[in-house]
């Protein structure tokens, strides 16, 4: 006889991805590596932020980069040329975001024991990457002023879940009618605590303050080693 019953599940839609993310997170933690998942629109300046940050952290952290792109390896080559200790390109083959399982081969290819900080540059997209945990310790949202102050209202998830927000291309702010007050107001409704750093990768404005904050997030053993 057929019986019909309801099974309570109570799991996240992406439970399978979350489990793999936990495996990645354990690998980063075991190696005392701070992993930062960088999420932004295409053209916001993710790669430029990585390069500028590497400059200011040069004497503080050995930086690896995992580059997620739909195709190509331009970004991996750029960060290597800028002094990254290691870089791996992941081509998602059309996928609009990175998923935790895609990182496993990249973590095999990078020697985590020789790194203190890994930037994971997600595919340019303000929606999908926010759902997919990768095993990062920090989620960073990069927005450029040219995209407009209304983005937190239109794409609330990314601003709500980020641990820090970098507002890039601050040198353009007066040219693009970006209303700073409205931007801060919307972000603060969604996320009262994440620090917001106004920077310009072109001029270097604000980059040191952002780098200082990030350096303080490095795992304690790394900070201790650098103090010696």
């Amino acid at each position, binding site marked *: 006889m*057929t*019986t*019909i*019953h*309801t*099974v*309570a*599940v*109570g*799991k*996240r*839609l*992406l*439970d*399978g*991805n979350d489990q793999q993310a936990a495996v990645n997170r354990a690998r980063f933690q075991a190696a005392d590596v701070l992993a930062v998942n960088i999420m932004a629109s295409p053209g916001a300046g993710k790669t430029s932020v990585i390069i500028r940050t590497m400059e200011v952290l040069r004497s503080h952290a050995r930086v690896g980069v995992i580059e997620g792109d739909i195709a190509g390896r331009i970004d991996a080559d750029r960060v290597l040329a800028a002094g990254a200790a290691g870089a791996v390109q992941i081509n998602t083959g059309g*996928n609009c*975001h990175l*998923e935790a399982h895609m990182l496993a081969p990249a973590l095999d290819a990078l020697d985590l024991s020789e790194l203190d900080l890994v930037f994971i540059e997600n595919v340019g997209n303000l*929606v999908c990457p926010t*759902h*997919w945990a990768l095993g990062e310790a920090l989620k960073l949202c990069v927005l450029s002023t040219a995209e407009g102050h*209304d983005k937190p*209202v*239109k*794409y*609330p*998830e990314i601003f*709500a879940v980020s641990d820090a927000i970098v507002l890039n291309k601050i040198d353009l702010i007066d040219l693009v009618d970006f209303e700073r007050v*409205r931007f801060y*107001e*919307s972000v*603060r*409704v*969604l996320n009262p605590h994440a620090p917001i750093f106004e920077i310009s990768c072109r001029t270097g404005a604000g980059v040191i303050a952002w780098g200082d904050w990030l350096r303080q997030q490095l795992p304690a053993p790394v900070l201790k080693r650098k103090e010696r």
Partner: protein
Amino acid sequence: MAVMSYLLETVQEQAQQAGAVRVRAINLVIGERASVFDDSLLFYFDLLTPGTVAEGARLNVRRTAMRFHCATCRENYSRVDDTFCCPRCGTVGRVAADGSELLIESIEVES
């Protein structure tokens, strides 16, 4: 696509554990903030379920809204236009319900 394939993986696991021969319904809760839309879910559901235990199942999506609270009006409200401010008095509100759910609440199975 990717969301649906992970969802079905969990549904199949749960159905198997329950000794189900067929999944009749999948009940999801999806918040407004998550920006996951019905048409894309249904499109990939129809594409990925044939031949699985979830073939022919109903996909029920309960939507939760983002709600804000205005301390001046002492009332909750939904977002209007391109601001989170209270539509009545303009006060900057705070989040009362974050609408961030992305959950498989339950499945209805035949065994």
